[in-house]
Every structure is written in structure tokens, then in C-alpha cells.
């Protein structure tokens, strides 16, 4: 049986995505087994991409001594250098920016973990405070009851000492 061409597969994948969007637009729930979006690059993949780009950042500006027709190529490179020197500066700076971003991004999971831990500690503190407030409330309620009992006792004693006048 003939295999579908790669382009056919791509078209069918696109049509499936469109079908899923339209289906949900019509109010239907997500289709079981609906095509998932393509996987995100794994963590750390950016470093690999940057490394590969860095290997070519000075492309064409350096020649090894093993090159054939070395002198001719050097001549061509000297002329090309007039135009490519700015490009090399640009490439280097883009790489620097990407590495800086990558370092910042690499720190994000750590920051998230710290924030998560802090949030966990905060939740414990809130629980503790809630318990203490409840204990305090019980003490206050008990105090109020005792105050009421004492007031009634005093009123009864007063009634015994000062009989009502006619």
C-alpha cells in the first residue's frame, strides 16, 4: 500500500487542528484524542541551539592553514571583511543577549521553587494564626460568661443588702 507523502500528513494535521478549533467554537467539548500541539523543546535545549549558532557566528572570517587555495581565499576574505565586520559584532551581541536570557530563564525554576516553598511556609503560618485566634476567641467567650455570672451574683447580693422601698 502506498504511503502518504509527508506533505499530505502535514495538511491532514492542519485540517485536524482546524476541525478541533471549529468544534469547540460550536460549543462542543474537547474531542478525545484530539491532536496535541507539538511538544515544547526540552529544558536546556536553548543552550544547544545557542552553542550551534555560536559555532557559526564568525563564519567566513577565519581560515585554517589546511584550506586549499589559502591565499586566494584570504584575499577574498579581506574584501569580504569590509562588509562582514559589522555582522560579526551583531552576531556576537545577539549571542551575548541570548546567553544572558538563557541564564535568567535557567534561574526561573529555582525562583519558582523558592516562591513555592515560601508560599508553603506562609500557609503554615496562616494555619497557626487561625488556631491561635480561635483559642483567643474561646478565652474571650469564657471571660464574657464569667463576667455575666459575676454581674448576676452582685445583683443578688445587692438585693439582699438593700430591700426595695415601698
Amino acid at each position, binding site marked *: 500500500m502506498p504511503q502518504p507523502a509527508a506533505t499530505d500528513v502535514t*495538511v491532514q494535521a*492542519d485540517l485536524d487542528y482546524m476541525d478541533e478549533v*471549529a468544534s469547540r*467554537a460550536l460549543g462542543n467539548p474537547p474531542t478525545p484524542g484530539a491532536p496535541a*500541539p507539538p511538544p515544547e523543546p526540552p529544558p536546556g535545549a536553548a543552550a544547544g541551539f545557542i552553542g550551534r549558532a555560536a559555532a557559526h557566528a564568525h563564519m567566513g572570517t577565519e581560515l585554517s592553514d589546511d584550506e586549499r587555495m589559502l591565499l586566494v581565499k584570504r584575499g577574498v576574505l579581506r574584501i569580504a571583511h569590509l562588509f562582514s565586520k559589522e555582522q560579526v559584532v551583531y552576531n556576537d551581541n545577539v549571542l551575548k543577549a541570548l546567553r544572558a536570557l538563557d541564564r535568567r530563564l535557567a534561574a526561573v525554576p529555582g525562583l519558582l521553587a523558592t516562591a513555592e516553598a515560601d508560599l508553603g511556609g506562609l500557609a503554615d503560618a496562616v494555619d497557626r494564626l487561625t488556631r491561635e485566634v480561635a483559642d483567643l476567641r474561646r478565652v474571650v467567650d469564657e471571660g464574657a460568661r464569667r463576667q455575666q455570672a459575676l454581674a448576676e451574683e452582685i445583683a443578688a447580693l445587692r438585693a439582699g443588702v438593700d430591700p426595695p422601698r415601698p
Partner: protein
Amino acid sequence: MRIAIAKPDFGVAGGFEKVMSRVEHELCVRGHSVTWMGVDMEALSPVPFGVAVPPQLGMRAGGFVRYMAALESFGRLDARAYDLLITTQPPSFAVEHPRHLSLFSHHQRLYYDLCDVWVAAGWADAERHRHAAALVRRVDRRHLSRVGLFLAASEVVRERLRHYNGLEDNVGVYLAGTGLHETLLAGDAPGADSSAHVLCVTRQEFTKRAELFVHAMAYMPDVPARLVGSGGRLPYTVDLARRLTTPGTDLDAVDDTELWLNRGVLPNGVAAAAPATGALRFLGQVDDAELARLYAGAICVVAPAYNEDYGLTVIEAMSAGRPAVVCSDGGGVCLPVVDGVNGFVVEPSGRAIAGAVSRLCEDPALASRMGANARETAAEYTWARAMRQIMDGVERLCG
């Protein structure tokens, strides 16, 4: 009444925006309060209806993804606090309201009446685009069926609602003016440009077919011509003018694909400079005063667009007492034109347009007679009538 007007915000102020500003003004004058509900079309969700669309699909069928995202955004707008909802361009009709008046300018035309030419011009892959069109129509049908009353922007748009959506009973028409055409009708326009010329006023975009005007004028290289308007295809059109007027060019051998049925990519990738002088001059955008002067100095006005919703330019030209030359497949631009009475309806080709323009150039009495008839036709297109049609619609919905 508290009235909400829902409208996609494209960040531009074109003809339809002027129409809606006028509608707002007229509603306020009648004592209603008007609130705009917009969706920023530049800030749509990249995840329409929660489906993460692969970036590659965004490139291959970006229009579909954006349309669905816009549809979702409008569907989330809450207009319950208002007594009446007026919706405008697609897909603003996705907002729900029990008293819903749609001033229906047009469908998302790439997926309806322009579907085939869009593919033929090479803008999209046929299989994906036709599939997207089928889905858009299915989704639209659900929302359109909930609209209380449609006022289509022209008879052409009304016919499209019948043809594509089976909607007929709750569809009326309102015919907007332009503001400028009322100035022209009143005779308040400034004096004419010194030289008589053939005029074309259009945005330089796909299916507006300024290219046909350029082709027509290449048959008459000595007749002064003015092309007003700018847009994405302007560099292409300028280059086309240069190519068509190159000596030895066989004008009859140039077909639609070489003229307008393409993506407007420059053959050599380099834009030619717009010629500052010569018979055909590209004027770019001009203000209303300058446009009025150009209408006043025109022998006739050519409106070569393909399957338009409505023909504001034609109404303006007729208001200035100028006959219009339109193409038989022009849709709404043809509606006010009675062939041989107030203008010419010709087949969509440069040669046919040139033939009609030649007749008017060579016979000033004919041009004058047709211009007078055109002015009479244009006098029917008043804002008073448009607002009566709209207010009748409001009355019908709100009792």
C-alpha cells in the same frame, strides 16, 4: 435607550468607520446613549477556544486562527446592560443579545465570495483554505441564526446572506452616504482641478483592481489620468504602469494573472518610483477638499473593483455629476449605475474600460448628459434615508 455598538478595532479609520461614526452621531442626536464595545484585532489570543495552534499553522492559515480568536473574543463580550446591541463587521455578530441589530457590512469575505480568487491568486493553499472556509461558514451560521435583524450594506450583501446563510426574512438593507457626497451634491465643493482627467479612487489592495485602471490608461497614454489612494499594492501598481507603457508591450496579451489576480509581488523585487509627471499620476491619499477638486475636474470616474459590497466612490463620483465606469463583476459598485444612462458597465478588462472612457472623452455632450443623470441618481443616497432605514430597524426590534 442605552445602545451598545460592537466593532472590531483594526486601528484604521476607513469608509466603514466613517459610516459608523455618523450612525453614532445620529443616534445620539435622537437622545440615545451609545457605548462602543471593541475587540483589538492586534491583540487576539494565540490559543483560540483553548486549542494551542502550532505556529506553522498560524503561518499557513493565519486568517482562520485570527478569525476564530476574534469570534471567541466577541462571544465573551457581555452586552446585557444595554437595551439594544448593534453589531458591525464580522465576527462582531458573535455577541449575544435579545435585541440584536446587525448592520451587516459583509462576511469574512476570504471564506465566502472571495474564497476562489484568494486561492487563484496564490494567497493560500487550496485544500486548507477551502476546508477553513467550510468551517467558518458552519460556525458563522450558528451565530448569525441568533441575530434578530440584519440591515445589509447593499443588495449585494443581502443576496450573499441569502445565498450563503439562507437568511431572508429578517434581512433589510440600508444604504449609507459618505458625508463628502452630500457636500458634492450641495455644490459646495471647491473649484475643479485645471486639467480634465480620468479619475480612479481606490485603496491599492487585492480585488480593488487599480491594475485594470492602469491597464486601461495604457491604451490611452495621452489622456491625463489620476489614481488616488494608497495601500500594500501601490509599489506593484506603479511598477505595472511602467511595464505596460514600455514600448513594444502587447497590451492585449496581458491577462488577469499578470494584472491583478496575483499577490502583488514585484517581478524584480524592487519598487519603481512613482512618476511625478506624465499622463497617469499616482497621487496617494488626498484630503476631502482635494478629492472634491479632483472629482470636479474629472471627465469620468473609473471604479474597477471586483465584487464590492457597496460603491461609496461611485456615489461620490455621481454626486459630483460625473459618469462612472464600472465592471460587470463589480458587485455593489454596479448597483447605482444604469449602463448608458449615468455611466457604463463594461466587461472586466483594461480594453473594455478604455473603450468606455474613450467614448466619454470624445463626446463631451454625452459625458455631460450622463453626469447630470448620475447626479440625479446620487441624490437618492442621503443620510436621512439611511438613518430612516436604521431607525425603522431599531423600531422593529424594540417595538
